[in-house]
């Protein structure tokens, strides 16, 4: 009998997954499992979600081929799946609308969420506003500082944002705090978990709500090129956008799947978030997967310039895909990601999320490896509006004096203020970096 990798429904993916949770939450998880199974088989639920995606999310998201960027990738054809163009600015809305509809079916009136970069929090706050529910978003204090714009967005949407000050004050601690809230308020509250991690049924359910990305993209690439792509790539933190685009291709053995993990300052340092590359199996946030931990099983701090990838765990389905060799996971450093970020801005006029820039950096190297006839499909999971300040500081193009002046006098910036000439010089150097990057690290194909 042929087995299909797409058929996996949990709770376990090989030795990964499961449900390691306090008894207090088991009833709620069972309730969600049952409700989700019913919804999955209810045409009315699918119709309602499809209609929302069509009229609110903006689906199907388009493909954009990026030849000027791809010129730095060994001439490979690079095609972006534009999840950044979704309402709220990332793929996160796919899952949130699905879970919010489910919460409504369960009679819940309050949504809670954890968020790292703020994209999932913004999406959840948006869905709560749309459906008339109250919303509390937990966000590590470190992240509320580096993603202040998204905090403001959530508040504008009517959500309460709670900065989490325990532990390492990042995404993993935001999950802990959301679980604590849920334990206490499970009667009226649904926890909209934002990635393909956590206890069953979250990894399966969140994947299912995101698999539309790959299902659309697979057909769109066929229509565009007449064939399947040679590789499908995405960035991986918890792994929701990656599983979303991978899933439709799992049973296409000739399509390579590559996830790019955040290597921060480098995997040889202690400052990274490359969970599959450097971690080992363990139990975190309700499931068994790969994780960064010390010898005693204490979770290690992760580090990445990208708040959305700054997580010491990863979804169990990714751990499984890595273990059976179906997908490969490759680290990308902060500086590699930022070079690719700038390159996409200046060659294609698209400002990506720093998370997605990790996949762009990976594609630069992969293209050099695969050669000029290859086709790479990349999930551009989010847009970079939220990262403008981080990126501008990184590249030294934030004119702080002018910014203050703007705020004080409400006067416009002169075009020359952003030191665009210097930037172009750096960009030319950037293509050398890309070549170097490609020679140093490869994917086995």
């Amino acid at each position, binding site marked *: 009998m042929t087995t299909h990798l797409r058929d996996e429904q949990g709770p376990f993916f090989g030795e990964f997954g*499961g*449900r*390691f*949770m*306090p*008894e*207090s939450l*088991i*009833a*709620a998880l069972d309730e969600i499992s049952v409700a989700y199974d019913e919804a999955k088989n209810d045409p009315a639920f699918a119709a309602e979600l499809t209609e929302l995606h069509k009229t609110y999310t903006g689906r199907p998201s388009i493909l954009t081929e990026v030849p000027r960027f791809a010129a730095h990738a060994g001439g490979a054809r690079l095609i972006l799946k534009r999840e950044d163009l979704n309402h709220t600015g990332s793929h996160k809305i796919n899952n949130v609308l699905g879970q919010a509809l489910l919460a409504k079916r369960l009679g819940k009136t309050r949504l809670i969420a954890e968020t790292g970069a703020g994209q999932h929090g913004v999406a959840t706050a948006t869905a709560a506003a749309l459906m008339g529910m109250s919303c509390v978003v937990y966000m590590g204090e470190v992240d509320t500082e580096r993603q202040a714009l998204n905090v403001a967005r959530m508040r504008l949407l009517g959500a309460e944002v709670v900065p989490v000050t*325990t*532990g390492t004050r990042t995404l*993993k*601690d935001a999950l*802990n705090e959301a*679980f*604590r809230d849920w*334990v*206490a*308020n*499970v*009667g009226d509250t649904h926890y909209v978990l934002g990635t393909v991690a956590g206890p069953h049924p979250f990894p399966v359910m969140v994947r299912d709500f995101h698999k539309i990305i790959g299902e659309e993209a697979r057909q769109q690439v066929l229509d565009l090129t007449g064939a399947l792509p040679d590789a499908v790539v995405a960035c991986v933190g918890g792994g929701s956008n990656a599983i979303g685009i991978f899933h439709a291709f799992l049973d296409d053995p000739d399509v390579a799947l590559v996830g790019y993990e955040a290597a921060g300052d480098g995997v040889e340092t202690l400052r990274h978030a490359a969970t599959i590359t450097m971690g080992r199996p*363990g*139990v*975190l*946030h*309700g499931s068994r997967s790969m994780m960064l*931990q010390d*010898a*005693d*099983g*204490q*979770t290690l701090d992760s580090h990445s310039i990208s708040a959305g990838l700054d997580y010491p765990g990863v979804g169990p389905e990714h751990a499984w895909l890595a273990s059976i060799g179906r997908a490969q996971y490759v680290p990308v450093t902060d500086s590699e990601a930022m070079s690719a970020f700038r390159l996409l801005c200046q060659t294609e006029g698209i400002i990506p999320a720093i998370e997605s820039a990790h996949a762009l950096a990976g594609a630069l190297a992969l293209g050099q490896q695969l050669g000029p006839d290859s086709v790479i499909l990349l999930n551009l999971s989010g847009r970079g509006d939220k990262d403008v300040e981080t990126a501008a500081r990184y590249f030294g193009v934030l004119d702080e004096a002018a910014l203050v002046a703007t705020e004080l006098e409400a006067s416009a910036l002169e075009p020359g203020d952003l030191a665009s000439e210097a930037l172009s010089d750096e960009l030319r150097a950037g293509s050398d970096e890309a070549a170097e990057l490609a020679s140093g690290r490869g994917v086995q194909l």
Partner: protein
Amino acid sequence: MSETAAAASRTASPVGTRIASANEQRAGALIGYLPVGFPTLQSSIDAAVALVENGVDILELGLPYSDPVMDGPVIQRATQTALENGFRLRDAFTAVEAIRSRVDAPTLLMTYWNPVVQYGVDRFADDLVSAGGAGLITPDLTVDSGADWLAASDRTGLDRVFLAAPTSTDERLKVVVDNSRGFVYVVSTMGVTGARSDVDASARTLVDRLRAAGSTSACVGIGISTGDQVREVLEYSDGAIVGSALVRALGEDGVAGAARVAAGLAAGTAR
């Protein structure tokens, strides 16, 4: 009854025995929680000894963990301090051994599951037996996910305390009762650890449901911080579990402070 459940009921449990005798002699048992390594390893040992000397029947030593989802702010802060001070898993066995050499109280470890997995479930069980420990309370491990632990505890005879919650179905309560050894941890309220002014009425209902499922040893925890609350809980249950109030006292007033609070709580066990 499953094979493991049958094995569980066959093995004499030091914790279960102590709870039974506390219910014969007094209103019930007092179970006291402290984290290992807070504020230092030695102070946590001294404090645990002082609890027993002031009327605590059974000790529950918490293993500090980086991601304690069932714990409220008091225990979170204490365990984070212990981790920052360099707590290692092996310190738990050191603490159990030191405490058992000084006082005669069954000592359970309360631990999130990943540290046990990383240490090795069988190795952890063997080292706990060697140290003189009684068993484990596992806040994020349920019976249905705990095959490794069921096997290791059956092999070693260690107690295994699973949690029952107000939201647990009757079917799940039966599984919890059949597979727990020592006692069933009755989660009094839907929430994390921490003192509350009232112990939730749902605790009484839950104990009744556990009795119907066959439990003879049900101890109530979460939200209990005074002798009066201990007395109230022991009217319908077999034991009262106190954590945050003791941890707070230890943090603020040292070992003597924890001892005073323990004595006040123990007054609630008088018949």
